[in-house]
């Protein structure tokens, strides 16, 4: 995992590890290693699911002093991401935002914005413009 501290990090959380990894591949294709990136998905038995501990690990792995934008698919992914953020130390937790955006398009758009050095709020706003 790249941990370039200058740019906002991107975390992708899907119930499906295949979707999470595939989305991360698309982000990488777009921005290379210029953005810290991590993904997680699936449950302990190899089935579909999300859990807070894996999300916490992903956020830590993609950590950037500029903050981290998290992309989620369905309900549990968002709820577990909120729990994961609360498990961070408060100084870090304030710099992690969950984006209300489609997971693939949002992550790719956000990464493109982040690769140019945009601040967290700008990265999130760019991704959220995709939501109706």
């Amino acid at each position: 995992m790249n941990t370039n501290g200058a740019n906002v990090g991107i975390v992708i959380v899907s119930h499906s590890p295949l979707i999470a990894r595939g989305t991360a591949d698309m982000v990488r294709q777009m921005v290379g290693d210029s953005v810290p990136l991590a993904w997680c998905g699936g449950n302990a038995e190899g089935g579909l699911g999300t859990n807070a501990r894996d999300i916490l690990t992903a956020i830590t792995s993609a950590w950037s002093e500029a903050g981290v934008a998290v992309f989620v698919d369905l309900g549990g992914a968002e709820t577990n991401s909120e729990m994961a953020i609360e498990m961070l130390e408060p100084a870090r937790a304030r710099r992690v935002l969950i984006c209300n955006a489609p997971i693939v398009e949002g992550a790719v758009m956000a990464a493109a914005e982040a690769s140019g050095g945009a601040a967290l709020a700008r990265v999130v706003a760019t991704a959220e413009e995709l939501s109706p």
Partner: protein
Amino acid sequence: MRTSRPLLPGLIEACHAVIVSNADHLGELDRAIGDGDHGTNMKRGSEAVYAERDQLGGLPLPEALEKIGMVLVTTIGGAAGPLYGTLLIEMGRGLRAAGSGDGVLAETLPPAVAAVARRGRAQAGDKTLLDVLYAVQQAVLKQSPPAEVAAYAMSAATDTIAMKALRGRASFLGDRSIGHMDPGACSCALLTGSICRFLEEFPSA
């Protein structure tokens, strides 16, 4: 609730037993209106807590409740992990803030249930486990005997059959969610029933 040592491992065993024996049923309910993993998720969570029951029993009750909550968050996963986890974590925090004493545990329930509602962005009537938690809270605050609390819980779970889901995966089905019991409401009522039965038989509770 004077000491957590003899009580808590017993409660954990009772909760574990009811989840394990109903895991298939919870899975069936969830397959009807959700993604079908509620039974296996709840079983994974209850087994993780069960494995640590003796250590948990040695902790002061507020710490034990928070620890159980964290275990549930990380092992149940899905949407239910954060919801059950939040309930127990908040009860533990409330209990620590309030200090010890009879009846204090009941007073931790309303703020903990409110935290679950915020976490799930749900309210009464949305066809979620919250419908059962509100019924339990009301019964507990009225100081109803355990058997009555359990009956209110099961009745509230049954009431979710006629509801249309407004939160969670089942909400994607719209009207087709009507006619099925919400799996989260079912697990919540089963756990409540198991806890109440245990407390009835527990000498000093």
